[in-house]
C-alpha cells in the first residue's frame, strides 16, 4: 500500500457533502432503533437481527456506503482526469489499488460499524444481547472489505460504476438472492449473514442465515481478494487519455 496515495484519498473523502451523506446514512439505523424503542418493542432479538441489522444495515446502509466510497476512491479521479497524477508515477498499480481500498474501507467502517453497534445496542436494551451485535459488527466489517473491493473494480471497469453498483445492490443483493436461495453463494449480503449467525448465540427461531458461517468467512475473503486482484489487473491495463 502506498501511504501517499492513502492520505490523498482520505483527503478526497473529507469533502463536506460526501461526509454529510455518509453521516446521514449511518444515522438511519440509529433513528429506526430509537423509534422502535418508543413503541412496544416486542420480539427484540428477532426484530433487531432480521429487520434492523439484516434488513436495514446489511442490505442497504452497508452496500450504499461502500458503493459511494468504493466507486469514488479511484473512479472520481479517472472521471475528472486527476488520476494521471498518480498513474504517471513509479508506483506499482497494486500499491495504488491497495491504498485506495484501505482508505475507502477505513472510512466506510468508521461510518457503518458504529451505526451497527449503536443501533443494535439501542434495540436490544433491556435484554441479553446474545452475540447479535458482536456478530453483525464483525459481519459488517468483513462486508465492508468485500463490498469496497467489488465497487473499486467497478469504478475502473466502467464509467457508469455508480449506476451498475446501485443495480447490483438493489436488484441482485436485495431481490434476486432473496428469491432464489441458490444464489446465496454469490451474495456478499448472504456471506455477512452467515458470519453474523456463526457468532451470535440467538435461537434459530429468531435469526437463521441461509449460508453457513465458515462458508461465509471463506467466501467473503475470496470475494474481496478476487475483486482486488481484478482491480489491479484492470488498472495495469488501464488506458488514460484526454485526446485532442
Amino acid at each position, binding site marked *: 500500500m502506498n501511504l501517499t496515495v492513502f492520505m490523498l484519498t482520505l*483527503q478526497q473523502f473529507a469533502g463536506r457533502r460526501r461526509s454529510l451523506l455518509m453521516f446521514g446514512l449511518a444515522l438511519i439505523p440509529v433513528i429506526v432503533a430509537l423509534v422502535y424503542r418508543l413503541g412496544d418493542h416486542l420480539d427484540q432479538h428477532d426484530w433487531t437481527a432480521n429487520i434492523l441489522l439484516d434488513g436495514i444495515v446489511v442490505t442497504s446502509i452497508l452496500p450504499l456506503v461502500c458503493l459511494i466510497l468504493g466507486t469514488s476512491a479511484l473512479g472520481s479521479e479517472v472521471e475528472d482526469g486527476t488520476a*494521471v497524477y498518480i498513474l504517471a*508515477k513509479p*508506483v506499482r498499480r497494486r500499491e495504488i489499488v491497495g491504498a485506495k481500498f484501505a482508505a475507502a474501507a477505513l472510512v466506510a467502517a468508521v461510518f457503518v460499524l458504529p451505526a451497527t453497534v449503536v443501533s443494535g445496542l439501542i434495540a436490544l436494551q433491556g435484554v441479553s444481547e446474545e452475540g447479535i451485535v458482536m456478530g453483525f459488527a464483525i459481519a459488517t466489517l468483513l462486508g465492508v472489505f468485500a463490498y469496497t473491493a467489488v465497487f473499486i473494480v467497478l469504478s475502473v471497469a466502467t464509467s457508469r460504476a455508480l449506476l451498475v453498483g446501485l443495480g447490483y445492490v438493489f436488484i441482485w443483493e436485495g431481490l434476486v438472492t432473496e428469491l432464489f436461495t441458490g444464489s446465496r453463494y454469490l451474495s456478499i449480503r448472504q456471506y455477512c449473514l452467515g458470519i453474523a449467525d456463526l457468532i451470535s448465540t440467538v435461537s434459530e427461531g429468531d435469526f437463521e442465515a441461509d449460508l453457513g458461517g465458515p462458508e461465509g468467512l471463506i467466501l467473503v475473503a475470496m470475494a474481496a481478494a478476487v475483486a482486488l486482484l481484478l482491480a489491479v489487473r484492470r488498472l495495469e491495463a488501464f488506458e*488514460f*487519455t*484526454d*485526446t*485532442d
Partner: protein
Amino acid sequence: MTATSQSGLSGSSASPSPTVELVNVSRWYGNVVAVNDVSFSLRPGITGLLGPNGAGKSTILHMTAGLLRPSKGTVRIAGRPAWRNHEMYRDVGFVPEKETVYAFLTGYQFVLTSAKLFSLSDPAEAARRAIRAVDMEAAQDRRLGGYSKGMKQRIKLAAAIVHDPQILLLDEPLNGTDPSQRLQMMDLLRRMAAEGHTIVFSSHILDEVERLAENVLVIVAGRLAASGDFRAIRRLMTDRPHTFTVRSSDNRRLAVALVADESVSGVELNDEHLTVRTSQFADFIRAAPRIAKTEGIRLQELVPTDESLESVFSYLVKR
C-alpha cells in the same frame, strides 16, 4: 518519416541512443484512426508537436507517456517499452492538458505529493526547488481550486519536474498562460533542454512552436506530415501556393498589372475584388503595393484567404 532533434540524425554512430522512440505507431478507437503509422526518434533538446486540434498530438503524447497502448507499433523511452512500465516514470515527467487538479490541495502539497510518489529522498526540498523553478512561491500555500489556468499550468509543471526527469512531455503547456508566464516557462524549458533534457511539447499555435522548439513534428490527421528543423518547415509553409483577396480603386487595371509580375501565378477578376494566386508569398506582398503605386491605383485591401493553420497543415500533407 523519421525526425531527430537538433543533436543529429537518428542512427548516427556518434550520437547516443534516442531517449524517445516511436516505431510505426498507430492508434485507433473502433473504426476511427487517431494516429497512423508514426515513427520518430528524439534526443535531448526541445521538440514541438505541432498540429491542429484533433490531429492526434495528445494521443501521441499519451502513448509516449505510457498512458495509452499503441494499437500497432512500439513506443520506447530510454530503450524500454513505455506501455505497462511504471518504473519508466523515474525518467519521465508528464504535464497533461486537462486543467483539473486536486482542488483541495495547496500548490505546495500538490508538488510535495508528487515528490513523495517519486520516492525522493528529500521530497520537501525537491518540492520547494520545483516551485521556485516555476516562480510559484508566492501562491504555494493557496488551494489549487483558487488558481488561475496559468497558475495551474505552472504548478502542474512543477509537479512534473520535481524529480528532475530526463524526459519531459507536455500537452499544450502554454495554454492559459499570460505573456510573462509564457516567457518564464519558455526560459525554464530552454534551460532544461540546455542541461540535456529531452522535452516534447504539443501545440496548435505556430508562433509558440517557432519560439520554443528547435525541432518540429507536424501532425495532421494522425499522420506525421513533416519533421525536422523548424526553419525548413517554416520555409515549406511560406513557399506553398497562397491565395489573396485584393480590393483596389481599379480592380481590372490592377489585375492586368499584377498578372505580368513573376510572383503571381494567376488572377481572377470577381465582382468587387480580385483573387490572386502566388507561390512566392514574400515577393508578392512586396510587389503588390509597389505595382499599385506605379499604376496610380489605390490599394484598399490585401488579405491572404487561406492562412488558417488547417490549410497550412493540409498543404503539408498533400505535398
